[in-house]
């Protein structure tokens, strides 16, 4: 299940990658339970092949597409990105995938496509966490079209050189390293091009705590906790690895222009 001929990129070459064990055993994926170890322990029933994605809305090419037709294995590249969770911990992950823009462009979004909406699989048989109503299922996320088309945005099908483990969002997920982790929606089954800002799961649950943009920003605290620092995992036994959180998680050069003139305290 490891990929051949992955194109290496310059992204994150100097970063210290988190151990595979940590990245695959400490996850927030409420579809499999609230606990950090639940996704690994309870995701074995997830069937990731065959996998189709329904494309709808303001685009020239809509319909149901097989994942293998959307992402060609020969085009896969590796990018090492920092992942910053809204809960103030972080990791560094080597993702395998393609630029989200290259995939979205193939569906010919029209001029009315101002936003892109994404949806996770809803199937309580495969995803035991969905049997409770901790979240309003299915999990929903969205991006402004220019955010989605930014070269940093990635559609990942693998990590550490192999296919995505179920607990990490198999078989296909977003990776948006300048935003808090919950924006990087997992196990995607639907992409819809829309004209108005879509509703997203966490901002529906607690609009004052989680906004649509959710850009990593040390200057805008979560109402209940500080976002100025983060614990880079894994931590030591008695002392955590505290790192200063950077604006846009350190990807300011790539994405700051998307938000020029915007009040990021208001649009958090």
């Amino acid at each position, binding site marked *: 299940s490891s990929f051949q001929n992955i194109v290496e990129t310059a992204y994150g070459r100097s970063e210290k990658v988190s151990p595979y064990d*940590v990245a695959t*055993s*400490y996850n927030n994926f*409420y579809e499999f339970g*609230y606990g*950090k170890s639940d996704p690994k322990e309870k995701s074995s029933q997830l069937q990731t092949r065959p996998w189709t994605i329904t494309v709808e809305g303001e685009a020239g090419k809509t319909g149901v597409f097989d994942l293998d037709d959307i992402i060609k294995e020969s085009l896969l590249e590796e990018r090492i990105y920092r992942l910053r969770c809204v*809960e103030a*911990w972080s990791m560094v992950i080597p993702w395998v995938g393609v630029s989200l823009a290259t995939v979205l462009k193939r569906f010919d979004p029209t001029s009315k496509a101002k936003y892109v909406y994404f949806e996770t699989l809803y199937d309580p048989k495969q995803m035991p966490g969905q049997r409770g109503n*901790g*979240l309003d299922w299915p999990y929903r996320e969205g991006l402004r079209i220019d955010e989605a088309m930014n070269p940093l945005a990635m559609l990942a099908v693998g990590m550490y050189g192999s296919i995505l483990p179920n607990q990490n969002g198999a078989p296909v997920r977003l990776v948006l390293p300048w935003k808090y982790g919950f924006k990087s929606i997992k196990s995607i089954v639907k992409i819809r091009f829309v004209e108005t800002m879509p509703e997203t799961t966490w901002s529906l*649950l607690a609009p004052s705590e989680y906004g649509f943009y959710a850009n990593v920003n040390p200057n805008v*605290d979560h*109402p*209940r*906790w*500080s976002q*100025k*620092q983060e*614990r880079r*995992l*894994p*931590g030591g*036994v*008695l*002392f*955590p*690895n*505290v790192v200063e959180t950077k604006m846009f998680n350190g990807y300011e050069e790539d994405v700051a222009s998307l938000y020029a003139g915007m009040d990021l305290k208001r649009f958090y």
Partner: protein
Amino acid sequence: MAVFWDRREKPYVVFLFLMPLAWMVSSLFLGRYFPDPGKALMNVSGIWASVFVIAVLFLTPIAKFTQFRMISRYRRFVGLGAFMYSILHLVVYLVLFAGLNLSWIVSDLVEKPYIYAGVLAVIILSALAITSTKKMMRRMGKNWKVVHRLVYLAAACIVAHLWWQVKSDITLAMWVSVFIVPLLVIRINQTSYYKKYFKKTLKKGLR
């Protein structure tokens, strides 16, 4: 009776009280809390502090309504257990969770009212621990009992502290509330008695 308890039972009770701590320390060094030990240990130590507060609240009604009247002797001791685990909880937050990073701690503790309830509970439990000695009991006289009723406020603080932490999973907040809230309601039902008692002691104090 009291002498008997001091000598013979104390070591066993101390041993019992230290078992959760021993479990936490061994788990920590065995890597059970890996890769974010601060977060995991903060949860576990907080749960044990709550368990001890719940236990101390239960001792009074149990002693009142059953034949085990002698267990009310353990109240101060169980209270010290609650104090110990609440301090552990705080220390785990400061060291293992926030890495003694001053900017982090200041912004969490000073700017975010959402942990004030927890801080207040620790302050109350500390004050009660300091005044828990026999010497202090004698010195404070009747006021001692009144002051030590603050443990109910500490329990209410724990409930608030837990509900304010909720992201989406309410299991823990629910369980702790199930134990604490009925006991608080029983207490509030007895307030008329409490008020009378308080007024009496206050008058005496003024004289």
